[in-house]
């Protein structure tokens, strides 16, 4: 037995949530030719079927690109601190891709490691994630290579499966998911199934061996040669989570805020002394790959990548994680001592 819901009932339900004051985010057209995850005002903005993968990620609904941590007011030598009132509005992230939802349990580690991040965790607790199993994928998808798949359940409170004819099977995995759909589903004998998913496999042991054994390899430079050093890959990545903390002040009143930062930008490691330990783009690329496939797994037991492929989709020069992983894998198959050229790199 399964539980199903019709497309119209689903949209009505989304409208009900919005009407009750719940914040709802999902994939929608933000302009004629651009699909992004965005806040929805009405359920007809929502794209449920035959949409491309949004080029951004759902992280911004839990870890916003700009977030006030506290406010302050300076009065002579007196400093008044003002707490940010705790969030109380529940939110639903709807029709997310499984590779987006999978990032949340991965991010939970870092936001609860040496410090319990109240801002992230407050939003996380207020959030219910409903994913839509993937029926299709494109050439940039590689969830298969990092332990995911088109119906990966990690991070999902419930998952929708398109049954065709505007019907969806709903599988609820958590109490949050069950609560969202309580009384709205019909029993059925029909069950849904995700599409085939990508078939790309990468030997991650080889990748780790290269990271650990070839830190100074000139091949990093060859792989990163075309990287222009923007942060598009990191800001559209569901798992990249680095931030900067800055004061924004007008006159005597200001706020301490955190905002996204990117290891691909030259300023990221620029010390106050003027020294920069990462002067080359290849060092920044190496850092990103090493953090995702060696440092984070060593510390938290999980790869910091869900194979969504957004890094390549948004890269103005077609780089991203998959081409680099493929190059490393290829590299590990090349005889040691082969001269460095583009020949053996970035296939």
């Amino acid at each position, binding site marked *: 037995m399964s539980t199903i819901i019709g497309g119209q009932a689903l949209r009505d339900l989304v409208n009900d949530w919005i009407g009750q004051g719940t914040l709802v985010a999902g994939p929608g057209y933000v302009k004629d030719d651009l699909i992004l995850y965005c806040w929805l005002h009405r359920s007809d903005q929502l794209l449920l079927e035959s949409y491309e993968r949004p080029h951004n990620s759902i992280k911004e609904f839990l870890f916003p690109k700009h977030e006030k941590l506290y406010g302050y007011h300076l009065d002579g030598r007196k400093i008044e601190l003002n707490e940010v009132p705790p969030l109380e509005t529940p939110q639903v992230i709807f029709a997310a891709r499984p590779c987006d939802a999978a990032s949340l349990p991965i991010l939970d580690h870092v936001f609860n490691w040496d410090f319990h991040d109240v801002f992230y965790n407050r939003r996380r607790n207020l959030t219910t994630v409903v994913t839509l199993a993937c029926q299709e994928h494109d050439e940039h998808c590689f969830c298969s290579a990092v332990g995911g798949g088109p119906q990966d359940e990690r991070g999902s409170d419930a998952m929708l499966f398109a049954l065709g004819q505007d019907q969806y099977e709903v599988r609820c995995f958590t109490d949050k998911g069950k609560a969202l759909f309580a009384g709205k589903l019909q029993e059925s004998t029909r069950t849904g199934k995700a599409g085939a998913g990508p078939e790309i496999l990468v030997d991650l042991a080889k990748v780790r061996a290269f990271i650990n054994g070839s830190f100074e390899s000139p091949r990093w430079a060859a792989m990163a040669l075309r990287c222009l050093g*923007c942060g598009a890959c990191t800001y559209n990545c569901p798992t990249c989570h680095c931030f900067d903390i800055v004061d924004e002040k007008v006159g005597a009143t200001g706020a301490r805020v955190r905002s996204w930062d990117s290891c691909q930008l030259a300023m990221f490691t620029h010390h106050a002394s003027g020294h920069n330990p990462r002067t080359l783009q290849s060092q920044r690329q190496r850092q990103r790959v090493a953090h995702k496939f060696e440092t984070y797994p060593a510390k938290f037991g999980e790869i910091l990548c869900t194979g969504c492929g957004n890094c390549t989709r948004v890269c103005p020069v077609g780089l991203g994680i998959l081409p680099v992983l493929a190059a490393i894998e290829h590299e590990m198959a090349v005889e040691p001592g082969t001269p460095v050229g583009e020949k053996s790199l970035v296939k």
Partner: protein
Amino acid sequence: MTSQLHKVCRELLASGQVQVIIGYGQDHPEQPPYPLFVTDAEEVPRLVWNDRCAANLVAYLKRKEIKALGKPAIIVKGCDVRALVVLQQESQIDRSQMVVIGMACEGIGEPRLSKCVTCDVHMPQHVDVTIGEVQAEVGEAGRRYADLEAFMSQSQEERMVYWQDELERCTRCYACRQVCPLCYCERCIVDKNRPVRFSTTATLKGNYAWHITRAFHLAGRCIGCDECTRACPAGINLRLLNQSLSKAAEASFSYRAGMDPQAEPVIGAFSAEDKESFIA
């Protein structure tokens, strides 16, 4: 065209005239080409040329990693080469220290990019070698700013709402700056933090400050390659901002950036004929 390109590049590398070819490579015909750096004559067959070679490779001339490869030959389209002309005017490059290979171009993308519809440089100018020949229609000068004019026909309130929606999406990834062949500052003003010049965070206020500042820095310099617009993951139509300044330079000073290496840059030039109507 490709075989001619390969022949030229092979000779340049084999003779030692250049150490690297900055061009385009492509793995599969369905996938878009990407920037490729060829240092070995044997690797020349990896270079491709087709109507999906969108990137303006001139942006790589500012990268120290690319400079370290030695004297370059760079493959450019007619629009891209205008950036080289500006860099030359601004003493940022020594033209004698590179070979410029210009590709005849009918336009990029299917459908064609906006800039290609009004293109009047299908045959690249001011290059060392030209490859191919096209008879593509020359864009009418009068249609050059059609997108901008359509946008400006809206009310000020409508335009303000448009820019708010657009700039709200900016994440400050700086893809616009990094792909720009003319954004070559050693340290961008947005990265100056002692003191902080303006908000570096992705708020609407900070985003306005960033994009307006960047547009002003490109006033009379932007050559309209639209790489910033192509690169923006948030789909922000930066073309409109840049066009408004290009149009002003053309309308007020009959100046188009990167068309004539001998021309004095409009921002640095004074003429008694300059309009003074703005003084009121």
